[in-house]
């Protein structure tokens, strides 16, 4: 239903959300200095998404919004996903093509730069055996 002047929500959720956001900010700073291996970016982005969701749902009254508003919200998330998904489906598969074409290149996933984003992602998915960067095999 439309927001009417008669129904005024209590401000209490605002304070709870505010506390939650501060706690999550502290957590994300604390987690960044912890030793989590390669999960830093994933955790940082998960926390950011949670914070964003809290802001949309409570501060921006997403919970009381109309279906039409939700269509716009979901639409913008979908379009963002298409942009990120489409772009990364290109960058993250380039190096793989190269390996298929030239399977003898044994160290294809271990060079530092010039290997493209796929090297990074593939390292993330299955890290090279000899440490990060891969060159320090001993």
């Amino acid at each position, binding site marked *: 239903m*439309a*927001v*009417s*002047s008669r129904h*005024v*929500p209590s*401000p209490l959720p*605002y*304070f709870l*959300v*505010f506390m939650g*956001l*501060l706690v999550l*900010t*502290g957590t*994300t*700073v604390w987690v*960044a*200095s912890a030793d989590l*291996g*390669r999960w*830093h*970016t994933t955790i*940082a*982005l998960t*926390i*950011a998404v949670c*914070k*964003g969701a809290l*802001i*949309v749902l*409570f*501060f*921006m009254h997403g919970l009381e*919004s*109309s279906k039409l*508003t939700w269509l*716009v*919200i979901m639409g*913008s*998330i979908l*379009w*963002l996903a298409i*942009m*990120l998904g489409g*772009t*990364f489906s290109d*960058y*993250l598969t380039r190096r793989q093509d190269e390996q298929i074409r030239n399977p003898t290149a044994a160290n294809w996933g271990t060079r*530092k*730069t010039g290997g*493209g*984003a796929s090297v*990074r*992602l593939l390292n993330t998915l299955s890290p090279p055996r000899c*440490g*990060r*960067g891969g*060159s*320090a095999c001993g």
Partner: protein
Amino acid sequence: MATSHTPLAHHFENLEQQHEANTLGMWVFLATEVMFFGGLFTGYAIYRSQYADDFQAASERLIVWLGAVNTAVLICSSLTMALALYSARIGSRKGLIGFLAATMLLGATFLGIKAVEYYIDFEERLIPGYQFDMEQWNKPGGHAEHARDHPVEPQHAELFFVFYFIMTLIHALHMIVGLSVLLVLLVRSIHGRYGAKYFTPIELVGLYWHFVDIIWVFLFPLLYLIRH
């Protein structure tokens, strides 16, 4: 609309319908903003995945606690913005004026801290394309927090700062626009234009303000907290 006594525009049936239409319009605008910032985030993500080590080395030059304080400042300003809308809805003009002023003060604080950060970046010659110090990255006992497997590519570190400055400057520009609109709201609130019956502009600016907060919520970990 400004000259009429009622805030209802003639092409709407009633205030509620007008409120719905205005709110939806603001959400659609925010969707375009998502795409606008989304392009920057996508470009950043590509280069960061490509030059992960160099981006990390560059990111370590930023002052994390200043960024964290700024995050807290923006979250506070979102709370005061939400409370400003609440005050308008319960018909408290004093509350509305006070919370709008508090929101502006917090927004200005954010920009002030950002300016200090930019000044430090300038001092440390981290401005891309302008006296960017290429030599500082691989000095022994230099800024590197821990030993690296590879030397830092200065051009890639510079690229990080290109993204850092463009993204934070555009975010700051959004803050400045928000502050200007808040100033208009503040003046009009003092004149008693908003209350329990008509608070749509407060709500719309609130949506924008919270959105700019969300952008920073993503910028902060992506730019300041790169560790892996």
